């Protein structure tokens, strides 16, 4: 799922300090799971902003809401009769949700309230780590189910580099070397023969290098 972290309160305050009516819009999707931008976080942020305005001796109306998903029009449409009441919205959805809301409410100021980070997993509560960079052509079948693009710091397709050290990546001892993981897993699976075959240069057109991407599924379109 998409992983995000709340933006620092000071940054959000700086965005909204000149307004008097602000809506904080959470999303019940990914950002709820990683506890960055669900209803709970929307409430916490709204109270913090209310406190700020009270202490500053200013009248302000700060409300919160959470939508089922901000990456879908039908849920964003639920805000259509509320938008006029606000000067600005802080969306706690991922970057997709923030942009989709802005697309739909073209003349409204929509600010991001979280930093969208990566596609990852929940290792534990409060501990998320990256697994995929959505390259558009998955090669996990060849790499023992471990992604070298997301999990090698140099996205090498023929690792590990000479910096891997006792299972750790050269850039940081806290990061496992993705390629040592691949090697170990291929060994476990009895597929080490794959390891010595050079992997050709990758076609990155399906990744972000091909420009903004789009999926058209004719089978699903009516």
């Amino acid at each position, binding site marked *: 799922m998409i992983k995000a972290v709340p933006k620092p309160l000071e940054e959000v305050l700086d965005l909204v300090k000149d307004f008097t009516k602000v809506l904080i819009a959470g999303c019940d999707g990914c950002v709820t799971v990683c506890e960055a931008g669900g209803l709970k976080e929307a409430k916490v942020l709204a109270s913090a902003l209310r406190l700020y305005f009270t202490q500053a001796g200013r009248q302000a109306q700060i409300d919160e809401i959470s939508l089922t998903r901000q990456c879908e029009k039908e849920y964003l449409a639920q805000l259509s009769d509320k938008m006029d009441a606000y000067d600005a919205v802080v969306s706690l959805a991922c970057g997709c949700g923030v942009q989709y809301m802005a697309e739909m409410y073209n003349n409204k100021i929509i600010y991001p309230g979280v930093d969208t980070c990566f596609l990852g997993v929940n290792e534990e509560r409060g501990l998320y780590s990256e697994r995929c960079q959505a390259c558009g052509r998955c090669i996990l079948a060849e790499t023992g189910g471990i992604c070298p693009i997301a999990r090698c710091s140099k996205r*090498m*397709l*023929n690792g590990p*580099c*000479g910096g*891997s050290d006792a299972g750790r990546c050269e850039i940081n001892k806290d990061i496992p070397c993705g390629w040592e993981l691949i090697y170990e897993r291929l060994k476990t699976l009895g597929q080490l023969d794959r390891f010595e075959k050079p992997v050709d*240069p990758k076609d990155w057109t399906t990744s972000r290098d091909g420009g903004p991407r789009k999926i058209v599924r004719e089978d699903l379109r009516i």
Partner: protein
Amino acid sequence: MSVTTPSKLQKMIASGNLAVTSEVGPPRSADGAVIEHKGNLIKDYVDAINVTDNQTSVCRVCSLACCIRLKLMGLEPVLQMVTRDRNRIALQSDILGAASFGINNMLCLTGDHQHFGDHPTCANVFDLDSIQLIQTVKMMRDEGRLLGGFEFAVRPQMFIGAAANPFAGPNVAMRVSRLAKKVAAGVQFIQTQCIYNLDKFKEFMKLMVDRGLHEKVAILAGITPLKNVGMAKYMQKRVPGLEVPDSVVRRIGGVPKEKQAEEGITLAVEQIQELKEVEGVRGFHIMAIEWEEKVPGIIDRAGLYPRPQLA
């Protein structure tokens, strides 16, 4: 190993003599005299001179410009190329540029992550990795083709090198496997990571010999003289993938400060003497980091000077 390119390094290796290479680091300014000076310091003692490519991700004069300078001085450069900063268009363009000046040796590297350097906030490229760069230059040389499919007539005559680190994770066997992969991609010579743990290096070479890989690729053993105990400790603790045994740290630290540099050089000379006897070692690559002036003395004392003159 037969001679397939105009490379003098390849010729030396093919002659059966131990080859000697060293490297020079370009300056962090537009001062072209630095490389000329460093090149002149070592030129009579080595068969080829590597020029590092923004090593440890610190921005410097580009390797290509320095290699052209050395070539114009009549020396034999080895163009180091990392895939960190350039995509396949730029890499191939630089290979053609180097070849257009008659540069005949390349070292294909992925490169250190930019996190180590002076621009840690930059974007990296890594369009290719070292093995794919080997494949690419081989294809350009042997098939006269770019990755994009374009065919051309005047091919780059490159003797293709790469690095190998017997000491990195997870184990020596895998490091031999990875080197086998470089051989499969087309590498012809290897300059290894600096060797301090000779036993482990010998274990690595034994596995290479057992698989016959030493017949397919020339291994030049990497030697870096230690300047003092501080450097030994730094390399032991801070350089990922490098192995400096405690005994080495103790030895350098065991002599007074003003004698440590001398001890480091003596150690380097002894290492070369010992490694000369290891089956599959075809030469040495001396990396004296910002200490190029010590290279001639090391090579001389190690019995590798004068360099054989080949017709």
